[in-house]
């Protein structure tokens, strides 16, 4: 038993691993990826939004197509609205 304890301690020291609290890295990564995917997704993001109102109006005159303008408070892209 004592021999196995010594082996384990030597193995930890050799690996360079400290005694800080262990973290489930797979779970951590999965949560970051899940929220990242949620931020990148959203069906409304598939609408081909034009960069600015002035640009949309300029292209509208060239193409003879109307502008769909949605004004709001906050930031629609970041979900802070």
């Amino acid at each position, binding site marked *: 038993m004592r021999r196995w304890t010594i082996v384990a301690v030597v193995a930890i020291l050799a690996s360079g691993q*400290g005694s800080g609290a262990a973290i489930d890295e797979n779970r951590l990564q999965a949560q970051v990826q899940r929220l990242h995917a*949620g931020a990148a997704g959203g069906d409304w993001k598939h609408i081909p*939004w034009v960069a600015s109102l002035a640009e949309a109006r300029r292209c509208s005159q060239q193409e003879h197509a109307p502008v769909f303008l*949605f*004004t709001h408070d906050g930031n629609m892209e970041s979900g802070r609205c």
Partner: protein
Amino acid sequence: MRASSLSHPTVRALISKYFLPVWLSRDQYQLAPRAKADHQELLRIDRYTREHKMPGGSVCVFLVAPNGNVLGSLRVHEATKADKLLSLLEEVIQREKLTPRSAEAIKATASPMHTGIQNPEREGLLLHVMTRLEERRAHYGVSEDWVELSASEWRHFLPGPRTGLGDSWKVPDEVARKIVQYFYPPSPNWKAQATTVRNCTLKATLYNRPRDEGVVHLAGVVELSHPFGRDSPGVVKASVVGVIRYRLTDDTITSFQMASTEANYAWLWRGKPQPERMSIAVEKLR
């Protein structure tokens, strides 16, 4: 609207095919100052709807003809309903005898999204903070904020020259607060200025140092107050963990990930607590 009518497949298809779609934030939240040309055009459209007694207001849909006339408009409480927005779009498409835009034209005018940090520092650490509610309000989607830590700030996440494996240190409050102030969920009150960090303890531990890489583990607790609406007080309580990897040769952070192991947001509605589970995640962008 983004989670309701703007995500409806037919609404989306009609907007994409027949119109030049553009969204505009009235308060430019998280965005660079509005260009003068956009500002003047917005004032003109607002004036037009007022003079023609059409629906208007800060949160509103406007359909604007090539000559600048407003063909129709819907306030948010109507436009958020897919059937109402759909009937306005269909009516204008028929009345104006619109033809679909070409795929080339659509591609040429589509622009990538433009939120984020403007002009980031060369040596700064750019972090992406995301939150979401996980129960009744999961459909609010994911909120995003961006935080840039200067080199003198992000160095607090790395060990000093005499730090040994297993040693821990506290991340200074002023640095931790720059990140955790955004740990509130998507809600009708979206402004970070409404947040008060009540408690924040973030501990870093040098966990591992194999070969040429160092690994730091983070663990902490956070408590914020953030109202749900204008007058509905709310509190976020969260426990978080994180893992930072850095190069030993030049102390460059190569990976930074943090996430909640447990997080709740409870706000008061008519004096009754409305608790909801939420998730928080932070990742390095640059």
